[in-house]
């Protein structure tokens, strides 16, 4: 790659540009594996829910994500796979600006949600993270009742019928809230297991139930995109299977992006798979069946076959 322009790491700042006029090039001598643009140009039917263009992320001097451009189709499951340190979680966190919370991180490039730039000044981050929700590796319910865990978001977000605003307006929101909690728990396939103990502390649930509770909590604010960072890696096979079934069902309504270390999980549950390899590069992005049957890149083949990584 030519070094037409080098951008220095910008620690302590969180600058963003709208990408195309300021492309970032890889610094010379870093290319380890062969990469080709056509391997990452993924053609799909339907609309792109999110679009990243020339996305670079630095943690201090560390260039963690290198010029990643990738479109995420709506109402489908996109899996991000790759060895540790390949940038897949970094990329995921760019999609709802969670990297903003890391002081040393700086993000360059563009990410659009429904065509609107999320890295622009004045964007409402609370609103963004409501639309683009996140579920983490370890279940992290609040130390509150099951009901409160689910109702927390809607109350906080001030929904006109159920939230703080409704309370200030003196509306009785208990029925609406009850319905919302029930709907979220049903969507997360947890309702049948917890409906008779809604006031119990959520920390008393099993790990798998806690994770589904976190998914329900994410769903309660009516997101459009759900980001999942290894959501089943701390769970046993039965709980994992339930989460996987749930992800499959969620994709009928939501856009799901999932980081997983479990290759078979990616193969089982995703519609398309993006493979990141060491150095923060997206190397190949295609239909999941193509990635797992006939990947174009030898390095991707070696990685998914377990020959390195």
């Amino acid at each position, binding site marked *: 790659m030519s070094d037409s322009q080098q951008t220095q790491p910008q620690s302590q700042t969180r600058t963003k540009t709208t990408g195309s006029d300021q492309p970032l090039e890889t610094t010379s001598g870093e290319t380890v594996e062969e990469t080709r643009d056509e391997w990452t140009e993924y053609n799909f039917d339907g609309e792109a829910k999110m679009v990243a263009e020339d996305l670079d992320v630095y943690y201090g001097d560390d260039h963690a994500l290198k010029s990643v451009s990738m479109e995420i189709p709506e109402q489908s499951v996109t899996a991000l796979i790759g060895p540790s340190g390949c940038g897949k979680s970094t990329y995921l966190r760019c999609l709802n600006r969670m990297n903003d919370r890391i002081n040393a991180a700086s993000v360059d490039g563009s990410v659009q949600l429904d065509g609107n730039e999320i890295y622009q000044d004045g964007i409402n981050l609370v609103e963004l993270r409501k639309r683009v929700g996140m579920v983490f590796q370890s279940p992290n319910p609040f130390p509150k009742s099951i009901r409160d865990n689910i109702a927390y978001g809607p109350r906080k977000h001030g929904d006109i019928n159920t939230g703080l605003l409704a309370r200030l307006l003196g509306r009785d929101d208990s029925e609406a809230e009850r319905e919302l909690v029930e709907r979220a728990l049903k969507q997360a396939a947890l309702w049948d297991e917890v409906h008779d103990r809604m006031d119990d502390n959520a920390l008393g649930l099993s790990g798998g139930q806690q994770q589904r509770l976190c998914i329900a909590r994410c769903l309660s604010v009516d997101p459009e995109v759900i980001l999942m960072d290894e959501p089943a890696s701390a769970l046993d096979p039965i709980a994992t299977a339930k989460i996987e079934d749930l992800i499959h069902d969620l994709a009928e309504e939501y856009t799901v992006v999932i980081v997983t270390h479990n290759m078979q999980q990616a193969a089982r549950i995703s519609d398309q798979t993006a493979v990141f390899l060491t150095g923060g590069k997206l190397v190949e992005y295609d239909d999941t069946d193509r990635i*797992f049957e006939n990947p174009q890149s030898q390095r991707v083949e070696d990685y998914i076959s377990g020959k390195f990584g």
Partner: protein
Amino acid sequence: MPRDEFQQSLANLRAEVLSMSDLVGDRLDRALTALETIDETAARDVIEGDDAVDRRYLELEATCIQLFAQQQPVAGDLRFVAASFKILTDLERVADLAVNLAQYTLEADRKRFEQVDLSAIGDLACEMLDDAMTAYRIDDAALCRSVAARDDELDSLCQRASERVVRDLIEREVADGDGWAVEQLLDDVSRLLLIVRDLERVGDHAVNVAARTLYMIESDPELV
């Protein structure tokens, strides 16, 4: 390299499939020679040896299933195990056809229809199978396509042979009242037609092997 043991299992599978193909190729050769020379002992040998081929087939099929279940191969590894799994079935069928040929030898105690060159048909079918297995051994996509291309030639040889026999049947005059001669002739004709059909099928299985091998090498299902 991680997964050394898995890689070794794949190498072993390839060696085992090739060794089974050697075994099957040998059976087919011997069946054809037995047919040519009316060698009943060799024919019986081929028939009795089929159990060993079947056992080998089941063992290797189990090996493939075990690899699928325990190693969950993907990409090139997946295509290799899937292709091998299918190729084993074709090899087992070829061995069954060799048994058929051996049985025809036992049934026919004399040579008839000398004008039909069965050995040319048999040689071509054997050569196709050999080449398909060579393609599998050395990952040769061009050889796969060449095997598939030769199938037309084999089919036309078979068709000409069949027509020749049927024409001969029509033209032959059997002495009035000689029922025994008529029975024998019908026997010979149908047997020869079956032999030709089975050799044609050997070629079809060779094409199947080539098709699966091409899929294995290039993920190209064009011949499948």
